[in-house]
């Protein structure tokens, strides 16, 4: 098995999960509390990666990362590195691609928190942000964990977007799924089988954990 690819995939998945918690929770909180009439637009943008072919997303990201675009030029000026075909670029792509898998469970869990508990907290003098921290988040925790786990598992298995944005650079952008593709192309079925089995087992366990958490949160 390609250990460098395994290490890279796990690192990418961990960083992506943390980033999705940091970005996804505020978005989910905003979606459950806002009365803005066009919030469907935000919901649609967040959900877009669910229906968009990964290659399309990857193509647009590649354009955005290129030295000719302001984003790519700015990042190169700041760090001396290119976003395209780099680990950072891969991480940015994974965050955007993973957003719906995190935000949707977060939003569902936060929406289930009884609004009167939030109001009770306000009437007891607690500010909105600390109310989120002390009341909404603890009560939505099973859903938040489920979302994080889904995002983690999904990052492990990404292929199309990775291939477009990251290419196949060992130690930099060569993830587990790329390594499986490579092994099959070289007719190394034994190696591809081992890696695939690993991903299968991980994915299955993740789903078992997620569903049991969701069941518990529904019963609670």
């Amino acid at each position, binding site marked *: 098995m390609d250990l460098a690819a395994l290490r890279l995939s796990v690192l990418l998945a961990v960083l992506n999960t943390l980033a999705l918690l940091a970005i996804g929770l505020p978005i989910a909180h905003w979606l459950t509390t806002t009365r803005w009439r066009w919030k469907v637009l935000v919901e649609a943008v967040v959900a877009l990666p669910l229906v968009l072919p990964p290659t399309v997303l990857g193509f647009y990201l590649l354009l955005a990362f290129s030295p000719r675009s302001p984003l790519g030029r700015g990042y190169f000026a700041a760090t001396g590195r290119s976003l395209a075909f780099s680990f950072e670029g891969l991480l940015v792509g994974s965050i955007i691609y993973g957003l719906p898998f995190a935000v949707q469970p977060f939003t569902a869990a936060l929406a289930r928190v009884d609004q009167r508990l939030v109001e009770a907290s*306000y009437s007891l003098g607690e500010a909105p942000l600390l109310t989120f921290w002390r009341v909404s988040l603890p009560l939505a925790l099973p859903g938040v964990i489920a979302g994080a786990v889904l995002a983690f598992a999904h990052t492990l298995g990404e292929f199309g977007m990775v291939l477009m944005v990251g290419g196949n650079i060992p130690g930099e952008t060569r993830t587990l799924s790329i390594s499986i593709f490579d092994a099959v192309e070289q007719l190394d079925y034994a190696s591809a089988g081992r890696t695939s089995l690993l991903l299968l087992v991980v994915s299955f366990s993740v789903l078992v954990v997620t569903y049991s958490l969701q069941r518990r949160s529904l019963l609670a």
Partner: protein
Amino acid sequence: MGTLSFDIQKRFARGPTVRATLDLPLDQARVTVLYGPSGAGKTTVLRCLAGLDVSDSGYIRFGEERWFDSAARRFVPPQRRGIGLLFQDYALFPHLTVAENIGYALRRVAAGERATRVDEVARLLHIDDLLERRPGCLSGGQRQRVALGRALAPRPRLLLLDEPLSALDAPTREELRGELRALLERTGIPSIVVTHDRVEAMALGDRMVVLAEGGVRQVGAVHEVFSAPADLVVARVVGTENVAPASLVERRDGLALVAVGAARLWALDPGRLDGEAYACIRAEDVVLQPAPATATATSARNELVGTVRAATDEGPLVRVTLDCGFRLVALVTRSSARRLALAPGAPVAALVKAPAIRIVPRSPGERS
């Protein structure tokens, strides 16, 4: 302390417009009951006072503070109003213990001081043995006390209670009613209680505000509002009921003799009665007959001799106001009104059976 004055107006997309204007003096700690049928906007008024809903227009002033003023675009958020709010179904934090619930508002207080205050409040409410439990394993009555303790812990300046007893089963409600009144008196915090329950209004309130058909219809002492409704809307909302302050004279055979005005009445002994109370008699339960030639002794029949003060037609019935030691309203048919010649000044006797007199205690009796 000043006055709580407000003018709250709120329109609902597919519903009525709620409008309530009121000035409530807060100098003595008094319990004001906000009474009205469901849909009258009681809860809306309470939520606007708490800052959880925003009135479309108007103002809310608490003493010198302006909590809301639509003209000046001023809104003080609920966090900075210093109110204690009791939700109808209590809204306890399910993931926190009873102690953590009570101490919730005391986050900025040092841990030791917080624990002292939580203990103090828990003892006041007799829940000091429940502190480590979670709301999920408490009875309805216990939950109500925890919610009350949570609201009281930060020493609010105003208590708002939304149907505080409606989530309880009937026996618990009976038990907690008197207790709640005593507690509200003891805390010394001015309170506003929303209710649509007449007995609750009588048992808890000093002052009563009737909210019906989109506005405040009457403000006054509880028994005054019940006995002398200001208009037909209030009369329909509070029912035709005589409510008069009563005090216990003696008990015998499960009956209680109470003094009401200059009269004495035998009623069923409600228990836990040792002080202030209200005697309630439905106007339909008063039977009128010709005044006897000689006065009879007071019996369980409660024969009261008096004079007619007024008689007005009310549909097929006649509403007769009597003076028989206290003000008593009776509803009789037109034919019997004619037979008895019920004109103002005429003598008449009123009969009220003991079971038809309901005694609502206002301060709890000794705990047995």
